[in-house]
């Protein structure tokens, strides 16, 4: 029995170069890959995507405004990670094929054979990871309930309306009135979608995306002067991380989204002057540049 074990070790050592350091030098990409996949939450940019500002003809019609919110709540979409059973299969499959794929990528035939030796271990590790990290239906529903509760308790729509009013007061000279009866224009806000989106994986990082529709209306006949949508794209965490501590990260992200969106809505609708296309935008840059 001992003799057999030694023989296997000898064969592995022969392929790897007969030294632990050299063996590690060949398999470190696997550890690096697992570390990158498992541990790192890349810092992703937070940004708002917005449309063209209202035309000047529309802007000329905007008088004192009243802010309202649509009665319909935002649709929520949380990407569901792989279930436990599927995660076991997927983790095992990826784990099994990763060592030969990585070690053979240098074009070394010995790397492929060594990789195939490591495959059962890596495959088992992948399957165990899948069994632990996979999310069953009950856990997914619990997380969904937690996140929806955060949305309700923070009353995101009303808070966004207050934040927009504050941003308009601070950043612009646009007058705001409290009642639609005395307003010349109504700014109607509809949160359309709150989404945690990502790939269908074992435990994928999910990006926060919030979409808000904005309409400028004439209160007399409810005719539409301007309609547009703003998207906020924010942080990235796994679904479990989003829901930890009663959705603390989700609550913080909602506050950040509110701040970004309110400032951009105020600036875009009431402040930005769209310059007409002009020759001043284009230049032929000399090369090498003049001192």
């Amino acid at each position, binding site marked *: 029995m001992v003799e057999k074990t030694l023989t296997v070790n000898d064969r592995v050592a022969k392929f790897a170069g007969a030294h632990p350091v050299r063996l590690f030098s060949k398999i470190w990409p696997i550890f690096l890959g697992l570390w990158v996949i498992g541990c790192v939450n890349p810092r992703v940019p937070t940004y708002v995507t917005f449309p063209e500002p209202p035309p000047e003809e529309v802007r000329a019609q905007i008088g004192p405004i009243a802010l309202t919110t649509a009665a319909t709540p935002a649709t929520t979409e949380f990407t569901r990670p792989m279930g436990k059973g599927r995660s076991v299969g997927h983790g095992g499959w990826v784990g099994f094929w990763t060592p030969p794929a990585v070690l053979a990528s240098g074009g070394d035939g010995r790397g492929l054979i060594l990789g195939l030796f490591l495959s059962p271990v890596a495959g088992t590790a992948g399957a165990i990871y899948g069994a632990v990290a996979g999310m069953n239906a009950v856990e997914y529903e619990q997380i969904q309930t937690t996140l929806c509760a955060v949305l309700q308790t923070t009353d995101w729509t009303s808070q966004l309306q207050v934040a927009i009013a504050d941003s308009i007061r601070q950043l612009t000279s646009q007058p705001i009135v409290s009642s639609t009866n005395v307003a010349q224009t109504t700014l109607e806000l509809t949160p359309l979608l709150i989404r945690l989106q990502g790939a269908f994986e074992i435990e994928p990082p999910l990006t926060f995306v919030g979409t808000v529709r904005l309409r400028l209306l004439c209160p007399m006949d409810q005719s539409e002067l301007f309609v547009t949508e703003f998207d906020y794209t924010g942080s990235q965490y796994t679904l479990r991380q989003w829901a930890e501590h009663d959705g603390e990260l989700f609550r913080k992200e909602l506050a950040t989204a509110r701040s970004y969106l309110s400032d951009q809505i105020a600036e875009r609708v009431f402040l930005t002057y769209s310059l007409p296309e*002009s020759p001043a935008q284009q230049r*032929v*840059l000399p090369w090498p540049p003049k001192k």
Partner: protein
Amino acid sequence: MATQKIILLGLLIGLTACQTPHPPNVKVIGLWPDDPPLMYKPFDLWSGGNCYIWPVLDSPQPTLRWEPFPRPGDIAVDTCHVLAQITRVSYDLRIWRNIDGYPVELVYTRDALPSTVHRIERSLQTGQAYFWSIRARFALADQTRVTEWSRIELPRPLGVPASSNANIYPDARSYRFSIR
């Protein structure tokens, strides 16, 4: 016959390579940066190129300059004479730290700067790349208005995904510089 074709092809390639590259036509949205300037290296066979050369500055408190607003080119196309009515022109400045090619962290903000030149009032971190953008702030019919945040429109800087055609804030197409 084949040898003649090869010689001809070689001559053609040689002539193309020796040709002075055409200076590129760069288009921006908003105001142009004067200092550090925008530099675009056209492609040539020997040294490559076809990309922006981002300036490396020595001072951690660099001085930034940009063109004044309104520009003669804007006034020329302003058929309604709106720009003739504007008053109280000033400038807003934003600087973000570059993380993986994106303006992730807003590190410097100034609003209503009175002139087209500004020395950064506190030291920026050395060995870092930064994005910067400016816009004009002015009064039109007693209302405060601003231009778009300045950014590169064409050619698109390398590494900025083609999908980001939309208006984005903050934008990876903002101007850039690094501190040595």
